[in-house]
């Protein structure tokens, strides 16, 4: 068995350990009120078990990282699969550090599932080792990507704590206008997370079933000589086509629940690489996420926020506020170093300019400016607590857009990791 | 105490105004210097060999109206223009008009053949390795710069011209 194959197996182990750890965290937190138990003792015991399991998961994850590195001869951060797995690992590291300071098992209940989602998301991308193009062979790339990811991981922990704060303090019995607004937004945040989960479920379900549809798309391309050319491209779908690419013909479509031809066509301005397929994936994610959300609502018969809220009772919201703030404070210098300074050094080495206003660079700067605004907000009266928690949540959305959205929607020099 | 504080404030605000003003000014007007000089600007100086074995500089023609024409034997509209320039040169040289035809870094034989074929009497200058061509930011040929006696560019013409076009511009240069 090669090292790379071995690393794949360890990775699977890490994934399951994370899942178990999450389960134990849930038991630790929700099991407090089970009959016949001393809540404090219960939480301490299960919290410890969960933490140990999550540590074991992290160890397996580290083993994956280093064996893959050794096996492939290059640091595994060079394509979307490798980067996302690394980000997940960084989140676990950041979580472990923050947990070591504050020892709140609850944090695990929110940070570990975040890791699980990202690991699952990573698995959407092809996991083969791809040889590097020359621009990526630089020590600064390794340093840049890993440090930036670690900084972002702390923002992720800040997000988890911020979300917990929201779920903790928002009163789901409040029927005032502002109360309802807050409830709706929390619910929307949870719904968004479910859409991502829905995306994962849809992708893996159809991949498991081996679904495929093929289209040929005609495109007008202007080549380097300024000549217009008609280019035919084949587009493969791995989800049943609800939306087909603009100006395309179906080659083969496997019927799914009677759906044997696409219902809609992507608009013409969606002319990027595989834009039709991406749109189709988005539509599927929303459908799957909405179904999942509806199912959960049916099951609990109340808003999801109200379902989670009781589990958080007894937690001091101020602690959550401080954890969120502190995670971001710890992450900010790391992010600055990794995503801006090391990035500039690398850009200077590779392209001879430290800054080129490439979309990815701009978004890294936006993230940095956003979090520096956050840090300054914390200095102002009235911005601690609820507003800060919202800022932490929105901040992580910006982080995710920088990491994934830019590659999916805006192309640039960093599009090597595109899907 | 209060007074020195005020002075410090004024000094800092002034420095900020100066630096910030420069930054914004540079963004507004500081265009890319690699581009082609435009009307109103000054043509980059050069010193080049001519076909007669001499050396000519743009500065030799200070105070004179100058037509700087970039040409190559591979460019058909350039070739068409050459005899027209020759006639214009004969017509206006007594009034001080100078024409400097800069060849686009072709080899000696090509240029000499060309000059003798059209029997050109105005200076033909030899650019080497596209040095001057680059300084003038050329993208298309022919390109002709009409330079006024005060040393500023009156007009830049990209593409071939009819003799009447040249004549009309030269008249403007000579302020007739």
């Amino acid at each position: 068995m090669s090292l790379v194959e071995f690393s794949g197996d360890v990775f699977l182990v890490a994934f399951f350990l994370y899942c178990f750890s999450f389960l134990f965290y849930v038991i630790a937190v929700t099991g407090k009120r089970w009959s016949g138990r001393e809540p404090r003792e219960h939480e301490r015991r299960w919290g410890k078990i969960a933490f140990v399991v999550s540590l074991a998961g992290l160890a397996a994850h580290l083993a994956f990282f280093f064996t893959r590195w050794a096996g492939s001869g290059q640091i595994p951060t060079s394509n979307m699969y490798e980067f996302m797995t690394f980000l997940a690992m960084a989140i676990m590291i950041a979580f472990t550090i923050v947990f070591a300071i504050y020892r709140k098992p609850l944090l695990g209940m929110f940070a570990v599932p975040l890791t699980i989602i990202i690991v699952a998301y990573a698995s959407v991308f092809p996991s083969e080792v791809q040889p590097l193009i020359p621009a990526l062979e630089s020590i600064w790339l390794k340093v840049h990507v890993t440090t930036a990811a670690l900084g972002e991981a702390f923002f992720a922990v800040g997000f988890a704590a911020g979300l917990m704060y929201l779920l903790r303090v928002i009163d789901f019995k409040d029927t005032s206008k502002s109360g309802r607004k807050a409830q709706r937004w929390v619910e929307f945040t949870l719904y968004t997370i479910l859409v991502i989960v829905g995306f994962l479920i849809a992708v893996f379900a159809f991949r498991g079933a081996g679904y495929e549809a093929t289209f040929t798309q005609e495109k007008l391309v202007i080549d380097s000589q300024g000549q217009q050319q008609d280019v035919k491209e084949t587009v493969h779908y791995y989800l049943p086509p609800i939306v087909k690419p603009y100006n395309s013909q179906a080659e083969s479509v496997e019927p799914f629940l009677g759906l044997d031809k696409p219902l809609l066509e992507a608009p013409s301005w969606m002319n990027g690489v595989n834009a039709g397929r991406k749109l189709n994936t988005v539509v599927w994610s929303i459908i799957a996420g909405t179904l999942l959300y509806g199912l959960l609502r049916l099951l609990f018969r109340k808003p999801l926020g109200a379902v989670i809220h009781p589990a958080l009772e007894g937690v001091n919201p101020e602690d959550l506020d401080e954890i969120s703030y502190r995670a971001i404070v710890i992450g900010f210098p790391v992010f600055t170093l990794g995503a801006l300074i090391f990035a500039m050094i690398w850009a200077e080495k590779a392209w001879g300019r430290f800054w080129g206003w490439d979309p990815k660079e701009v978004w890294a700067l936006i993230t940095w400016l956003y979090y520096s605004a956050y840090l300054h907000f914390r200095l102002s009266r009235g911005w601690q607590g609820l507003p800060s928690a919202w800022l932490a949540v929105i901040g992580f959305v910006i982080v995710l857009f920088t990491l994934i959205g830019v590659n999916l929607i805006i192309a640039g020099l960093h599009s090597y990791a595109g899907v | 105490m209060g007074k020195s504080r005020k002075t410090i404030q004024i000094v800092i605000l002034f420095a900020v105004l100066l630096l910030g003003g420069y930054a914004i000014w540079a963004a507004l007007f500081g265009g890319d210097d690699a581009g082609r000089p435009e009307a109103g600007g000054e043509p980059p100086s050069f010193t080049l060999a001519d076909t007669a074995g001499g050396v000519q500089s743009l500065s030799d023609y200070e105070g004179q109206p100058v037509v700087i024409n970039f040409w190559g034997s591979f460019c058909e509209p350039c070739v068409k223009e050459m005899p027209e320039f020759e006639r214009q040169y004969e017509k206006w040289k007594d009034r001080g008009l100078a024409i400097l035809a800069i060849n686009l870094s072709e080899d000696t034989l090509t240029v000499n053949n060309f000059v003798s074929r059209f029997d050109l009497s105005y200076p033909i200058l030899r650019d080497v390795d596209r040095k001057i061509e680059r300084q003038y930011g050329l993208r298309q040929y022919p390109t002709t710069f009409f330079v006024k006696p005060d040393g500023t560019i009156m007009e830049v013409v990209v593409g071939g011209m009819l003799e009447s076009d040249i004549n009309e511009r030269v008249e403007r240069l000579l302020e007739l």
Partner: protein
Amino acid sequence: MLAVENTKCECGHQNAVGTVLCESCGKPLDAALQQSSEPLEMRYDGVARRSQKSNPAIIDRIWNFFSSVKIAIYLIVVTFVTAMLGTIYPQESSFINSFDATTYYEENYGTPGKIYYELGLSHTYESWWFIGLLVMIGTSLVICSLDRVLPLYRALQKQQIRKHHQFILRQKTVYRSEIAGDPKEWVEKFGAQLKRKGYKLHFEEGTGTALLAEKNRFSRWGPYINHIGLILFLLAVLARSIPGWQMDSYVSVPDGDTVPIAGTNYYVKSEKFNVEFYTDDELPEELKGTARAKKYETQAVLYKCVANCDDPLKEPELEEVMDHNIIVNDPLVYKGLKLYQFDFNLTPRLNAVSPILEDKRTGEIYGPFYLPMKNPELKHQLGPFTLEIRANYMEFALDSEGKPTTLSREPNAPAFIFSVKGPGLAEEGEPYIYFPMQKDKVKFAQDTINRELAGKIEIRVDGMENVDFSEATTHLNVRMDKALPYLWVGAVFSMVGLILGSYWQHRRIWLRVDGTELALGAHTNKNWFGMRSDVAGALKKIGVEIDPKTLDNGGNNA
């Protein structure tokens, strides 16, 4: 007469206008603040900020505007929102080839594209308003920092040890209790524990019953060091617009050529350009068959012109200063001049041939003679034959009048017209056209053009060893950036400041014992959790066991 606000504290200290907490004893000065029991707002230790002083004139108004953190936040927010807008469509600067921006956006993105262009968002980051925002952020950085750092420095320099009860008991971390025994001894014992945690102790002289314990004061300067770094960085960026500080151009060098680098006194030669692609074995399934570059490299030599540099009649005299194999991520660097591997072109270019002349009637072969494409010797003597070059064409073609002409100055389809004299040929010489490249010879039917002369003689190249061509052309990016060192210095300052301010916190503990009554208050600029555990830890060591959480006096995690 104007009413003069009484800023003299009961402890006798004369405070500046705008002071919130007495600079000496810490007692709130504002009457309303004195009545309340809320935890105190400890920012900048309650001292007056510069901008809050005196009555505002126009200068002060501008000063006040930029000294506000609120304005700073607005500026940051506006900047990142406009930066977001700039990424919707590609920026003009991202196109290397020339294109027409006025039509591009509308053609490709329709009406939104047109609006985008009209608004100037297609060059957001070079626009005056975006630069203006950065300038305003820079101004805010300078003024905000100055306005705070000096008063804060003064406040921290002259701290009184025995603070007012109101000050101590209205901190966010508070402990009060009755103590037994000698107060002085208690304070010393407690102080010793704090000392072990790295606190610096200041006992009240004489009595010894009041204590100020402080650690990591330096972390308070972190944000200001960071801001200084950012200002340096912005200034360095600004300095790049000084003429001559920055250069960004491209140079194309065919194999074996030496090319001047415009705007400098340097020449660069490419000995050879090499490119390696990944083999299919090295590629994963979905990439097989694609040309994925593994490495490209220019073997470059840098020359400096030492004489005749501007003399058009003489060849410049070059002196080698450096050679380096330029690969991506490893530029040639010489005294601030940097050459980066940018692109390449694998179209070969013919440089020279060494043909022979065959007298077909005798089978006799003369030569070879050296025929470079550019500036060849005009006369060649080959045995009894004399060759004179009459004309050359780099890309041979016939013009509209059927006359030979050239379509470019690159030797894409070179042709030479010789005048040949020799045995059995006309006295004045006979014209002979020669195409060095086989494909052109066929395409333009060399033998047909040369008519009967083609039967008498032939000029041809025998074997590839007599052909000299450049296999590839490398495109190098020429850079110079004098501001770079300053930029890195700014970045280092900024980073150091961030680390100081983020990973250490300034913690202070005040305590006073009046009789048997102990009052303890603690303040930190970040991380209250750590602050409380410090206090609780030290208390525990001297036998007072409490849950750190009970020290919390409410208020915000500022």
